[in-house]
Each structure stands twice: as C-alpha cells, then as structure tokens.
C-alpha cells in the first residue's frame, strides 16, 4: 500500500538476489569482487557495494507489492495496537499515530516523483521542468491528496471529494473511498461497529497535511451503502490558523 515499505521491500530483495552473482556490467567498475560475504555489520552490503540507497528512487515507482503480505502486516499492526488500548477511540488514535509519520515522509517522495514524471525524460529534469509547487490553498492540497497521493498509495484516485454543506463547519472537507484497500479483508465485530481501521490512512493524510503546513485533524468514518459495504469517508477538519490564512490568500488572489 504505502510507498516506502514497498520501496524498501522491493529493493532489499533485489540486493539480496544480486549478492551471489555480480552483474557483467560491474566488471568495468574495478577488479571483480570476491564472492565471500561481507562482514556483517547490520546492513548487508551486496558485493558490488550498491546498497538500496544507491539506487534511483524512481526505480520502484511501478513496482507492486503483494496484497496478501500487506494484509497480514496490517492485520498484525491492528492486533498490536489493540493489545494495549482501552477503547475504540484509543485504538483509532493509535492507528492514526502509526500512519502519521508515514504521511510526513511520503510527502517528499510524492513531490520528488511528480517532478520527474512531469518532465518526459530524466535527462531533461534539470533543465526544463519547474519544481511542482507546494500546495498553498486548501483546494490544491485536497486535489493532491485525492489524486496523486491516492494513486501512489493505492494505484487509483479516491472516489469523491466534498466540502461540508453545513455553514457551521466551513473548515471540513470529505474524501470518500468506496472500497479502502486496508479494510479489504477486515470485518469489524458488531460490538465495535464504530471502529474503522482506515484510521491508519487518516493518519497518513494528516501527516501529509501537516507536512504541507496545513494543521488538520483527520478521521475515518464508516458510511456503508448497499453496493459498497466498506465505504469510508475521511473527514478533514482544518485548524483556525489555516482558515485565516486561506482568507488572506483568497483576497490576494493566490492560487
């Protein structure tokens, strides 16, 4: 689901495979390395001395992660969070906290990747493309979450983006996902029906918002329909300061 785990899992597997047999291209870099394993110092270094940090970040952009391994990992995360909580709200808070740092870090990867994809070739990235702007207005941020972030995480856009209709809460926005990947295999027991494990995704969104400088609280709510039994609405409520800044920016006409 999330890019950094997918990324590292993918690359560490590659490096493990590359260890026993150096590729032919490596010969030009110097004398052939011996095949004896490196002294173990925590991180395994392949014989061509290329760790996962030496590889291009875009290399795993289209790499896919097994859905089943993610499902097992996420199930274990939920069980872990459940082991030391008192109530449903507490559990959701913990899942949210697990997602938050992921969102903060994901943001940089997202910006980085949108830069390199917007320019057609990697070689021209230094000259032609202008770096993508960090979102300044709420709407651009929401579109960033609804589109690119969702595609990075789940391979498709979110299903709906709405503004709260109530005049009391102009700071609330809703992003809808008809069938969240994290909940694909999860059936919440009836006595906990308030719980939505997509609180983890809400945490990721919160991290992204905070990383962009938009203070926000994000929560996940069940809104099942006949057709989509696990439809989830992510409610984003932005802080006072964000709304004030939004008004100033609107007056000065900044997009």
């Amino acid at each position: 689901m999330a890019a950094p785990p997918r990324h590292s899992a993918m690359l560490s597997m590659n490096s493990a495979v590359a260890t026993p047999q150096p590729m032919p291209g490596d010969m030009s870099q110097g004398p052939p390395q011996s095949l004896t394993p490196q002294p173990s110092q925590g991180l395994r270094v392949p014989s061509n001395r290329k760790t996962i940090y030496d590889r291009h970040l875009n290399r795993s952009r289209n790499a896919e992660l097994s859905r089943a391994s993610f499902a097992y990992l996420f199930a274990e995360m939920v069980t872990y969070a459940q082991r030391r909580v008192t109530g449903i709200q507490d559990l959701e808070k913990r899942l949210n906290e697990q997602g938050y740092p992921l969102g903060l870090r994901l943001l940089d990867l997202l910006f980085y990747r949108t830069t390199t994809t917007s320019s057609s070739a990697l070689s021209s990235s230094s000259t032609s493309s202008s770096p993508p702007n960090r979102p300044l207005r709420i709407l651009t941020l929401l579109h960033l979450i609804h589109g690119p972030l969702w595609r990075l995480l789940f391979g498709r856009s979110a299903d709906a983006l709405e503004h709260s209709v109530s005049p009391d809460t102009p700071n609330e926005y809703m992003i809808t996902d008809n069938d969240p990947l994290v909940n694909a295999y999860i059936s919440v027991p009836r006595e906990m029906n308030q719980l939505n494990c997509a609180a983890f995704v809400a945490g990721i969104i919160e991290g992204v918002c905070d990383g962009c400088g938009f203070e926000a609280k994000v929560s996940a709510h069940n809104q099942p329909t006949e057709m989509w039994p696990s439809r989830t609405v992510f409610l984003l409520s932005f802080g006072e300061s964000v709304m004030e800044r939004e008004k100033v920016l609107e007056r000065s006409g900044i997009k």
Partner: protein
Amino acid sequence: MRRASRYPLGDVTVFSLIIINKAGGLIYQREYQAGLRSLSTNDYLVLAGTFHGVHAITRSITPKLPLAQTSPATTTPGGGGSAPPAGYSYPNPGIAASGLEHLETEKFRLTCFQTLTGTKFLLFTDPMTGNVDTIMNKIYELYADYVMKNPFYQLEMPVRCEAFDRHLGAWLRGRT
C-alpha cells in the same frame, strides 16, 4: 453419464456448509439453499463433534505398510499386521491418511475437506453436483482471505466475519 453431460461449472446445488475446527468444535454453519431439513443448533454441534470423531477413527484404520518390505509386490494394504511397529508407512509416505471424504445418501452428498492445519470443511451438495473440489477450493480461498486475514478473528473460535459471509454467499448464489 448424466454428470458428464453437464457444464464444468454448471448447475450446482450447495445446500449448506459447516466448518469444524481442529478440536472438533463447530465454528461456522450456513444454509445456502433449501432442500435439507435444518437441525437445531445443538444438533449441529453434536454433528460436528461426531463427524470429527468418526473422521479420526477412519483415519486411524487406514492401513499402513511395513517399511522393511519396499518391494512393489506389497502394495496390497493391510498386510503389515505382524511387522514390528517401528517401520510403518502409509501407502504414499508423502500424503497423510485422509480419512472420511464422502458420505452419500439418496438426497444429498456430504464432502469433507480437511486442510493441512486440521480445519474441516463439510459441504452438503446435491448428489448430482460435479466439481465439488472446485467449490471446496474456492471456499478455502475465501476462508484464507476473509477469516484468516481478519485481525479480529480469534483462532479456533466461531467465525463471525461479515465479509466472509458476504463474499461466500454472493459467490455461491452467483453460481447456482
């Protein structure tokens, strides 16, 4: 003959499904089509326990072959009554004894599938239904997906997973 003329995944009548955990407890029971008389909850528990016991006995009376006689002439089972107990093997050492697999009456057929972990799936179908293996595999797949990947399911406890009910029901009804 009649079965051969049917389509591979054609008309299939699945009456009900029972899942028994490895200790012989009933953990799941659903009806999908009318056709069998239903039992009380208590009777289903007794059925599960009884079947578990009978299955264990049929497993243990599966004949073993003495290991010493490895010549192909000893393929007739049951010949190893007096050999020393240390060197026994099932006819095919790679496959454990399976025990009871089918029970058939005039009106229904019960097919038992035991997973490697000891969970048993009992499927009540029409005796004419072919391809029960395919159905069983799909049920096992759905079980592995929607029960075993659910963090709120406790092992060996009754299955109360709404997503499992939904997918299984939709799949079985979509086929019939």
